[in-house]
């Protein structure tokens, strides 16, 4: 469904991504791992349209994404849960979810998705009237994921959902992400630094280093690779 080929992005002459290609098929769980500064967030921002690429192509269900503005892309069913959560701090939890449901598909499915979001994250129901900025980091991450789900996405992109969270909270988040994938059948593209957990969940993994895709394959393939074992998993 998502097809990225030979994508290059630069920031003022600085290459952030070079010739990156990536494919996500419908129903898949795909993870991109890599160290800080590898270009993972840039990759996501380019898919959402906030960053413009220098060359390459991105298609979603055969549609050329690069010809669409950033805000139009969300209406195709691409939900971006950004790095650092980026909830609407001055809006209530409920209003955050409502804004997630801004595209037509989200509005049509609103009653059902709201129910589902509350089942996955009961705390959001309790905190419905509270301003999102007053929540803890973990709760804000739940708002961010819930907001992503609210648009009834065909592709859910999660950018480091574990960032800055306590290990126990991260476990919950990973569990919910897995539930969203398995039970709701949502296709997921995940960027993570907690490599072991992330790769274990996914059907296919990519390793991004300093803007280059250096490796890709399924869990077993990646696990068999020496570099991945040493640099990311701490195994010998």
């Amino acid at each position, binding site marked *: 469904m998502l097809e990225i080929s030979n994508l290059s992005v630069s920031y003022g002459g600085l290459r952030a991504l070079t010739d990156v290609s990536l494919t996500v098929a419908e129903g898949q769980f795909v993870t991109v791992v890599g160290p800080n500064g590898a270009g993972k967030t840039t990759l996501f921002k380019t898919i959402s349209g906030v960053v413009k690429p220098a060359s390459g192509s991105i298609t979603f269900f055969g549609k050329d994404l690069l010809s669409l503005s*950033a805000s139009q892309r969300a209406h195709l069913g691409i939900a971006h849960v950004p790095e650092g959560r980026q*909830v609407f*701090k001055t809006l209530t939890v409920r209003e955050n979810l409502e804004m997630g449901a801004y595209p037509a598909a989200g509005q049509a499915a609103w009653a059902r998705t709201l129910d589902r979001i509350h089942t996955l994250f009961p705390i959001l129901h309790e905190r419905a009237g509270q301003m*999102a900025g007053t929540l*803890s980091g973990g709760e804000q991450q739940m708002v961010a994921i819930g*907001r992503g789900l609210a648009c009834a996405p065909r592709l859910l992109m999660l950018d480091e959902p574990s960032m800055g969270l306590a290990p126990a909270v991260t476990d919950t988040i990973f569990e919910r992400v897995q539930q969203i994938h398995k039970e709701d059948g949502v296709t997921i593209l995940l960027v993570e630094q907690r490599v072991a957990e992330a790769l274990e969940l996914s059907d296919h993994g990519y390793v991004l280093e300093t803007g280059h895709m250096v490796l890709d394959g399924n869990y077993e393939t990646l696990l068999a690779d020496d570099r991945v074992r040493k640099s990311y998993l701490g195994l010998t």
Partner: protein
Amino acid sequence: MDIESLIENVANALTAGVTIGCIYGLMCIGLGLIFGIMKVVNFAQGEILMLGMFASLYLVTGGGVLAFLGPYVGPFVGAILAGPIIFVVGALIHKFLISRVSGLKTAGSIDDGHFGQLIVTLGISLILQNGGMIVFGSTPFTVRTPLSSSAIEVGLGIGDASVFLNKAKLIACAVAIVTALALYMTMEFTRIGKALRAAADNPTAATYMGIDVDKYYRMAFGMGCGITAIAGGLMATYLSFGPFVGFDYVIIMYSGVVLGGIGSIMGAFWGGLTVGFVQQFSALILPPQLQNAAIFIVFLLIVLLRPQGLFGRSAERA
């Protein structure tokens, strides 16, 4: 001064403060909306007020479109209709000028476009003032209504003391309150209002939700201009104005918005109300030339004691 006339003076200052304050409040909301949502400092807001006054004037007397409504209803309908007209003017100003130095175009640049905005809005302000001079001339105008020279007298029950309520100001105040309430409901409860607040809170995240931030910014700018224009139309019923009237009021607007707490749209209403109150009360003890000084003394005191403004609050977790 005997006690009876003192009570009368205070009561009159009180009612004048509330009526004028509500109109100032509406005027401030316009500026507060633009700053709160787009973070654009608009120096031309005083001239937008002036345009609102002239729009109302031409609707009521000049073009005579509303002549059939008579001198009682016409001026107020004219004031309300100045809103949508100046909304369009504001949206056009945004499309061709402001959008080039604000929003996603300058997001992430060193100054977030503020330097450009200062120069552009100051330039618009000068062009509108002097353009107004060419088009409208310098003779003062007013949107005449017999209501501005008649008052309701309310006895206070203490001797002969009574309060005079100017009818024009009273109706203007009511229209201002209704308009402010309508805006409040729109911002709080409608999809458009929520999307506007989301675009203000975090433009990038709003884009991820599929919200066309530039379109909403244009709407916010137009709305901010339209709201101030309605206030201008209302003020035009009781004061005389010319192309340079904006300068006096832009100061009041900025004090109101800062008092209410920068970024708080409804806070701007209370800020404007406070300014109106202070202005009318200072008239009791100070000569008219010092009224603006009184506003700034109260302003400095509040900023000293509550730098976040009267109604500014933080949504951040401590």
